[in-house]
């Protein structure tokens, strides 16, 4: 088994020279973290060149939750490049800057080694490090010290990668200065059978707060590997919401390090894989300092022949006394061919902490459905209502109204479609 650096949370890693990475090999099924999700032909993938800014003709789909420019700054990123003519960027007076990240070479605004892959080199997996090596393009977002963003910032990502076995690597950097605050959402579209590979490095300064929402709307043949790496300083707050509505093969890794006391983290995810779709979410929550807290809530509603994978790790370092960590994963299988692999993990090295975790997997309860039918609801109505209840209270915690209402509607349509395709299967529970 290849041991990835993240499995050794208590041993800080020095920044390694890039050429050392070349010795790493892509993870395979022998690696516990990649047991259910592998990309065996990755080394044969072609690299998709980024789009040229200004050439993109427009936004292909209009039924997405894109807010008006009064409500939000909307930045359109086509194949890794900001499309300024389609975007409404923050004004310089806002204290927020959004610019292209041309590889790992920055202008003077980025301090020290942050953004040059320092976090990724320390905690990134093989694919993130590979993206760094490719000098992947992306977006750099900076919020200056003490700036509380007056509007919501949205990035509308359109990855058009028609050919299978081609990959578009992207590298985004988000940096909040001390006491800064931002709500940042990403609406992510993946078109074609190619792969979107992205690395997010997020650094939250002392007392800062980032609400980070991702709507992953990948096509059902699209592949995605994403790693979000977050460093939290003292008293900072990070809330991540993931809505994963589909994708051929999706692997999301969320790695959060609380490196100062009184930091708080909320990780929430809703996963809805349908037929032939495979969605894998992995979280790694590292509590390194005292008095920090974290909440993780993940739910998966899996249609026939769909697969959900969840692996959630919580590490509590010996110094991290008074940690309060909670993790829960629930999956609801809509058909006997639906698969859910869930593994909650806790590793605690401190002795005065409160940590709990749990995971449930099952189908809808026949007794509940019968009870509802005796009150006049049809079987399909009863199922829809129970499924809706399963996802709704999670969606209620999505902090942006336009995204929340869009996701609720999208979810209902998706549940209809998943139920419909389940009804057409042999051994359907209806």
């Amino acid at each position, binding site marked *: 088994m290849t041991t990835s650096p993240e499995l050794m949370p208590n041993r800080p890693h020095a920044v390694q020279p890039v050429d050392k990475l070349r010795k790493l090999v892509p993870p395979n099924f022998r690696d516990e973290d990649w047991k259910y999700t592998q990309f065996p032909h990755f080394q044969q993938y072609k690299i998709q060149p980024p789009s040229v800014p200004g050439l993109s003709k427009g936004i292909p789909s209009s039924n997405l939750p894109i807010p008006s420019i009064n409500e939000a700054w909307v930045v359109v990123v086509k194949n890794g490049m900001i499309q300024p003519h389609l975007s409404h960027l923050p004004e310089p007076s806002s204290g927020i800057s959004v610019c292209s990240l041309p590889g790992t070479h920055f202008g003077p605004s980025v301090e020290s080694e942050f953004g040059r892959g320092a976090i990724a080199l320390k905690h990134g997996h093989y694919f993130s490090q590979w993206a760094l090596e490719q000098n992947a393009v992306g977006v750099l977002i900076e919020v200056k010290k003490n700036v509380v963003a007056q509007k919501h910032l949205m990035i509308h990502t359109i990855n058009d990668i028609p050919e299978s076995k081609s990959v578009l690597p992207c590298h985004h950097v988000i940096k909040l200065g001390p006491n800064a605050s931002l709500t940042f959402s990403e609406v992510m579209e993946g078109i074609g059978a190619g792969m979107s590979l992205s690395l997010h490095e997020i650094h939250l300064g002392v007392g800062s707060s980032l609400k980070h929402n991702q709507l992953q709307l990948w096509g059902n043949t699209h592949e995605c590997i994403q790693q979000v790496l977050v460093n939290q300083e003292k008293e900072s707050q990070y809330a991540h919401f993931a809505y994963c509505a589909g994708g051929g093969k999706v692997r999301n890794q969320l790695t959060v390090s609380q490196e100062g006391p009184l930091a708080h983290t909320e990780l929430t995810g809703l996963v809805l894989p349908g037929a032939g779709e495979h969605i894998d979410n992995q979280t790694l929550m590292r509590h390194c300092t005292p008095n920090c807290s974290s909440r993780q809530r993940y739910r998966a509603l899996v249609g026939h022949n769909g697969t959900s994978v969840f692996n959630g790790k919580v590490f509590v370092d010996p110094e991290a006394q008074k940690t309060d960590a909670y993790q829960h994963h629930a999956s609801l299988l809509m058909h006997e061919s639906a698969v859910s692999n869930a593994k909650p993990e806790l590793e605690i090295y401190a002795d005065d902490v409160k940590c709990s975790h749990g995971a449930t997997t099952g189908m809808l309860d026949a007794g509940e459905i019968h*009870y509802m039918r005796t*009150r*006049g*609801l*049809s079987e399909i109505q009863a199922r829809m209502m129970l499924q809706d*209840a399963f996802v709704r209270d999670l969606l209620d915690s999505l902090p942006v109204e336009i995204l929340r209402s869009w996701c609720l509607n999208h979810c209902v349509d998706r549940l209809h479609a998943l139920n419909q395709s389940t009804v057409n299967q042999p051994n359907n529970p209806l």
Partner: protein
Amino acid sequence: MLLEIENLKASVEGKEILKGINLSIPAGEVHAIMGPNGSGKSTLSSIIAGKDGYEISGSIRFDGVEIMDWEPEIRSRAGIFLAFQYPVELPGVGLSSFLRACVNESRKHRGEPELDASAFLALMREKAALVELSQELIRRPVNQGFSGGEKKRNEIFQMAMLDPKMAILDETDSGLDIDALRIVAEGVNKLRHAQRSMLVITHYQRLLEYIIPDRVHVLIDGAIVMSGDRNLALTLEEKGYDWIRAGQEVSS
């Protein structure tokens, strides 16, 4: 006759539970079924409400129509209501949105227009008062975090909302304290009228002091062995079921 059951037999995995039940309930009457544990009382009520998983034969006619093949939701919409002995919790499903969907399905079935939000709220307030169910409980998911008594009151509340022709109360008195029993029974009594029949299943005569039945039937070992007026319940309370069993042996 509103409900006519003829020679109803039911078995599970070869074990016969109901051995030929005959029971007729005219519109507006309240009938009680009493019987010892395991005699088939709950099975009978489940089968009338349409629960599957039994091998059944015989006939159940409701309003003159054979309903043995009907799905549970069709029976419900047609006006059969079963108050569960153990009401089921529905995680995350709000009571008011659940009931609104149920009430509107019944209305659609009867060819009536759906209730709008304000009319529905008004109806809900009126019916909740009947069983003293607080507005706070109505905002919660169905039966989630309800006490035993609150669950039973919620069943009667749902019955009031759905306005059935035939209500079956399966051991509604079990698990209730004296005050809750009175509240539930008063709620049921307020729902009695000339077009609504009830079948009250109970172990004890106590409930029948509040809900006065027109007829009392005794179910033992899957068959109705004795029927009578309300005095039968008093006799049973006094002498126990062994008195009937002994009688059966003598007569056989």
